[in-house]
């Protein structure tokens, strides 16, 4: 392991948050039931008219260096119209801003696209179009993304009659060959053009939806020139379950169960994000014990995920032995989880106000055995795979993602950090017990597949160090706060993010004060990573698609939701 090349960063203070109220430095004991001060994760939404939106966005992007579009959420406020909430962040100044735009036209809603400013807006706006029917003028590819091409209606609208319009179809899903481009003309009218997705004579190969190395039911249509990739068109939605829509009819405790089904290698963290979002919105302060337990569990989950990342990459590249080395070690973590949580993959551990059960008596002993075991075994990974010259040839310089591209595409997590972008939520906006531990944010500058692997392997070491610092210092206290039997969140829009296994996992919660959320949107860690595949793969060979897809590290249930 060459530590010389490693760019590390010492503990950085929390990024100043402009839109939200300043975070309390020390946790306040016993929060009141109805907080007088606004919740710390409440979004202060600046309302921008659709006509002025693009100019304002351009100003924020160019002048205030808001280069990271964190989250873009479609909304249906019924009588108040349809709209979009934007979360922007500057990677330079750390400033954060939330904007909201609304159109009252329900028949033919139109909003200006921001695809020209942030690349990731492309897929986000397609998602909004798919769910809410809002069309974006200036968008190059206005096509559905998760639902079938022949779907009738827009399922996330509150007045949509989804089941009536869409009986069970017995025919195969048609795939679109062309797409719609809307351009706003000088006189204010909108012109619609059709554009072919692939050119005539392109040799298109389907990678997926049933394919050994797409890590789930993902479908890429790949145009090839010989063995070189010309263009990739991801076809998503094969396991779209409408989790966000389901949440609108579930009570808050019920919504928790679905977060484990998003990123199944980040079940702890996703559920942590949702619990934390609800707790902060309600003004509930969890005990220090819960914070530490959640931190340890998150880090164990991260190690689990990174080991599986390594294993699958080995498997994809034909190194089956290294694959099983990874599984051998991952098993230990799953055993630890099983003792305390009862589950191995779907853990169901965090609850609103605490965790489901106290730590198992063996927990500390097992974890303390695991830390030196893993430190020893990770050397084997280097011996058998990472140091191998064949792997160097396969990965070095393959699929280079520059820092600008990573930020523009919103590729958070290890993928962004391998390109030199300091994006760790644990450093940017510390939560749980992360402000109490010393750890390095692993950042490299090469941006290639090799760097993406090394970042993950080094993060395993950092996670082990975090766990080591906490495992002997778990404070005494209650593992579950006393909550009311029916949980209601005060009206407002809240956003909370955690560092998931593969990037920033955010929860946007809009509440009207009921016992179910009005809208619950997850900032998927994987969707930007799938969106970047076309850019990062173009010009590489078909075999590199596997390396790049493996190292970019997306999980399909998290992409499709």
């Amino acid at each position, binding site marked *: 392991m060459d530590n010389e090349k490693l760019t590390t960063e010492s503990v950085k203070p929390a990024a100043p948050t402009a839109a939200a109220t300043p975070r309390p430095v020390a946790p306040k004991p016993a929060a009141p039931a109805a907080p007088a001060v606004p919740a710390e994760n409440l979004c202060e939404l600046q309302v921008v008219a659709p006509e002025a939106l693009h100019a304002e966005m351009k100003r924020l992007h160019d002048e205030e260096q808001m280069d990271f579009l964190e989250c873009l959420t479609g909304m249906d406020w019924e009588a108040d119209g349809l709209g979009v909430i934007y979360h922007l962040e500057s990677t330079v100044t750390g400033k954060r801003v939330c904007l909201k735009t609304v159109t009252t036209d329900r028949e033919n809603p139109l909003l200006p696209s921001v695809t020209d400013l942030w690349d990731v807006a492309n897929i986000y706006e397609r998602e909004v179009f798919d769910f809410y029917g809002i069309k974006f003028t200036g968008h190059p590819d206005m096509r559905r993304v998760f639902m079938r091409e022949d779907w009738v209606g827009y399922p996330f609208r509150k007045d949509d009659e989804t089941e009536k319009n869409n009986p069970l179809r017995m025919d195969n899903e048609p795939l679109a060959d062309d797409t719609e481009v809307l351009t706003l003309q000088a006189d204010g009218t909108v012109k619609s053009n059709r554009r072919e997705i692939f050119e005539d004579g392109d040799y298109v190969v389907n990678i997926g939806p049933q394919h050994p190395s797409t890590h789930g039911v993902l479908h890429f249509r790949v145009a090839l020139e010989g063995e070189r990739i010309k263009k990739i068109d991801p076809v998503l939605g094969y396991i779209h379950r409408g989790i966000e829509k389901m949440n609108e009819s579930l009570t808050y405790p019920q919504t928790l169960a679905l977060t484990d089904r998003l990123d199944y290698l980040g079940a702890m963290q996703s559920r942590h994000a949702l619990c934390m979002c609800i707790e902060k919105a309600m003004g509930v302060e969890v005990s220090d014990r819960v914070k530490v337990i959640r931190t340890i569990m998150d880090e164990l989950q991260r190690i689990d995920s990174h080991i599986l990342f390594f294993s699958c990459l080995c498997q994809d590249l*034909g190194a089956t032995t290294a694959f099983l080395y990874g599984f051998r070690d991952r098993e230990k973590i799953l055993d630890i989880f099983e003792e305390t949580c009862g589950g191995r993959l779907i853990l169901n551990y965090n609850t609103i106000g605490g965790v489901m059960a106290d730590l198992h008596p063996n927990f500390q002993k097992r974890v303390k055995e695991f830390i030196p075991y893993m430190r020893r075994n990770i050397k084997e990974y280097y011996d058998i795979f990472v140091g191998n010259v064949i792997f160097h040839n396969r990965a070095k310089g393959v699929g280079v993602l520059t820092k600008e591209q990573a930020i523009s595409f919103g590729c958070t997590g290890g993928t962004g950090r391998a390109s030199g972008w300091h994006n760790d939520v644990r450093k940017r906006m510390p939560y749980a017990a992360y402000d109490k531990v010393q750890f390095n944010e692993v950042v490299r500058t090469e941006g290639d597949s090799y760097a993406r692997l090394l970042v993950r392997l080094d993060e395993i070491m950092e996670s082990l160090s975090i766990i080591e610092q906490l495992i002997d210092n778990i404070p005494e206290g209650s593992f579950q706060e006393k909550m009311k039997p029916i949980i209601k969140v005060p009206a407002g829009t809240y956003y909370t993010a955690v560092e998931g296994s593969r990037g920033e996992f955010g929860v946007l919660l809009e509440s009207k004060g009921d016992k179910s959320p009005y809208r619950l949107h997850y900032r998927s860690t994987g969707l930007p990573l799938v969106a970047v595949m076309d850019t990062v793969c173009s010009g590489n060979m078909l075999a590199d698609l*596997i390396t790049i897809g493996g190292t970019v590290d997306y999980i399909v249930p998290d992409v499709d939701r």
Partner: protein
Amino acid sequence: MFDFDFKIVTEWLHALLTGVMPEWAAILTESILVALAIITLYAVFAIVLIYMERKVCAAFQCRLGPMRVGPWGTLQVFGDVFKMLTKEIINLRKTDMFLHNLAPFLVVTASMTTFACLPWNKGAQIIDFNVGIFFFLAISSLGVVGILLAGWSSNNKYSLIGAMRSGAQIISYELSIGMTMLTMICLTGTMSFSEICAQQAAEGWNIFRGHIPAVIAFVIYLIAGNAECNRGPFDLPECESELTAGYHTEYSGMHFGYYYLAEYLNLFICAGMASTIFLGGWAPLVIPGLEGFNEVMACIPGAVWFVGKTFFVVFLLMWLRWTFPRLRIDQILSLEWKYLVPLSMINLVLMALVIAYGLHF
């Protein structure tokens, strides 16, 4: 000293048969018997190899491998073979039916014919004539036709890409194989397998006689041979992570089984050739000066020596396969054309010099 010449058996059989039937009928009967023997051996070795591969790979991967069917899982492979035999051969629409059905037979025929070239023991060769190595190279090239046909007739993009890769790879690496064999022919002065083996029994193994150039040739042969067999790290043509199963994606039942069989037997043949040409074939290990040791070694029958050496090389190749990740197609071709071919050419010259100046043992 156990110096059994298998010719005694064949001549006795021939005499026995000509005693009861005319010459042509005797030869026909013998041919049928030999063919049956080959097919049986072929099947038996396939089963042994598959079991060995599973156990070896399990050992490398901290697993046990098959354990449930029979003691130590020994009957597992038999179960798998019967499963394969009973599976339906699915005919797909829009495939070229004739070529699609023909292709696996081409592969398995090429593999069986080369299998018949192996010298099992003194006097126990089936196909043996003065251009034996040449014949071996020619027949083993036939397999690639089957692979290309499989890819083409499947009417599937994965299969086609897999077949094209395989074609490019196998044809390229045949060059290295030919070149290393040529190097060793320089040393032996004959292309007949029986003579090569007899020579090694008398004068010592070629890898020792030819010292440096022979060792280089041996290493190049192992790399190229591994690539010829389409096995990891050169298993691109069927690499499952990109192309699902490459050229045999669309095959089912025993047609798929033939490819599977041919893959393992090609591994055995490749290793068998290595042991024939480099490691003395059926010749026992002789260390000059250690008479007692040599006596003991000579007591082991030639067939055991041959099979033992072959399985040793098979083990080396399995070790490679279960250690290395897969190369990319352009890297495979550049390894061959930029490194192995020039190296084996230089090695050929080196061997010629060694022989010209009498520097070999």
